[in-house]
């Protein structure tokens, strides 16, 4: 994954959480539900890919 393709991991994860919470509602619009489900699937795929491809970086700071 290149730098410009880098996703904001934490933000994407929060998006996913929002979707999960959205589905907790009693009444949901099915069409919107399908959209959200697709979005959730996409986020999960992205997060997994990110974890697989990225490495931790160590940067030494100078005071």
């Amino acid at each position, binding site marked *: 994954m290149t730098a410009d393709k880098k996703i*904001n*991991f*934490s933000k994407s*994860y929060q998006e*996913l*959480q929002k*979707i*999960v919470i959205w*589905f*907790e509602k009693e009444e*949901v619009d*099915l069409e919107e*539900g*399908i959209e*959200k*489900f697709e979005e*959730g*699937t996409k986020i*999960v795929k992205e*997060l*997994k890919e*990110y*974890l*697989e*491809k*990225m*490495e*931790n*970086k*160590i*940067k*030494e*700071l100078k*005071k």
Partner: protein
Amino acid sequence: MLPILSVSEFIEQINGIIAGEFIIEGEISQYKISQGKWIFFDLKDDKAVVNCFATVFSLTQLLEDGMKVRVLGYPKVHDKSGRFSVTVQKVELVGEGSLKKAYLLLKKKLEEEGLFAIDRKRVLTYLPAKIGVIASRDSAAFGDFVKILNNRWSGVEINLLNVAVQGEQAIKEITEAFNFFNTQETECDVLVLIRGGGSLEDLAAFNSEAVARAVYGSKIPVVCGVGHERDESLADFVADRRASTPSNAAEIVVPDRRDFISELDFSLEHIFSSMQNKILKQRRLIEQSFYTISSVLEAPLQKCRTLMENFKRVPVLLQNNLSVYQAFVLSAQRLFKNVDPKQVLKRGYSIARDLNGLIIRSSKQLDVGSEFVVEFGEGNILAEKIDSKNRSKKQTKLF
């Protein structure tokens, strides 16, 4: 011949002779603080005692009777009291016992001040992007931290500030590091302060008031992992999260990749089954609506069908019962024949009608002189009502 000196001159000369810095090792006794400003204590060994004096501003180390210390100071005879004492500039604790005592003293002080309060501990970011690490670059502690972090997680940036974790410079470098992370725009989500285990003397910096206050003052949440499981430091108590080891600090700051992925799968599964459930529910709702609508329509439809069926059966019934109906018609004919008024007239009755053809049921309906028709079994006549009284008169006249 010795010169004759005034007291002031004598003391001045003595102070000149004894001037200089000394390091004296001994045990503290009679420790007291006067007016919140002046510190007095005795420094003693088995055979001798010397008075010591310091100001609370110059001596930040907390002291207590029984502590073994090394005192850096200069001797002085005081003008006003004539007392001899050592003016203390610096005190260094000697031996584990003193360190332990000093540690407990400071711990109590900071605890009372609220530095360890549970309610000021902050929640760490679940998925940090940047982690600030204050550690010695070549230490096993930092090595362990990175190793565990790599095992568990990917994609974070570790910003390391290499510091001395023991010795003279440690306190200064560690506090400066906290200051750096909190004033520079490094945007770290969490700060990790780590070092390996050691004696109380080794951990002195982590037990110092300055480091404790630096941890306390950090705007960025702090995880502190010092030494082994059993070790504790004041920095630990002040930190937002205490890690038992540097490895444990890595476990605290990032989740485990495998746990996280199974959580992701679970989330997806959850929204999928939720979606499925909602679709099923919707389907049931539609089916139910359909049933309701059709059951409402079904009643009149059924009525219609029954009517149609019944109607279809009419000709069949008619056909089947034709003879019955014929017999019925014949007997009805007979019946009608019997009740036909014409038949009655044939038996000798007659009907009176007015000129409009209406049946006259009472003589009062007719005025004298009005005409009417009398209908017999055979033929009619036109008649006139005459005055019966006049008639009888006529008859009287007649007879």
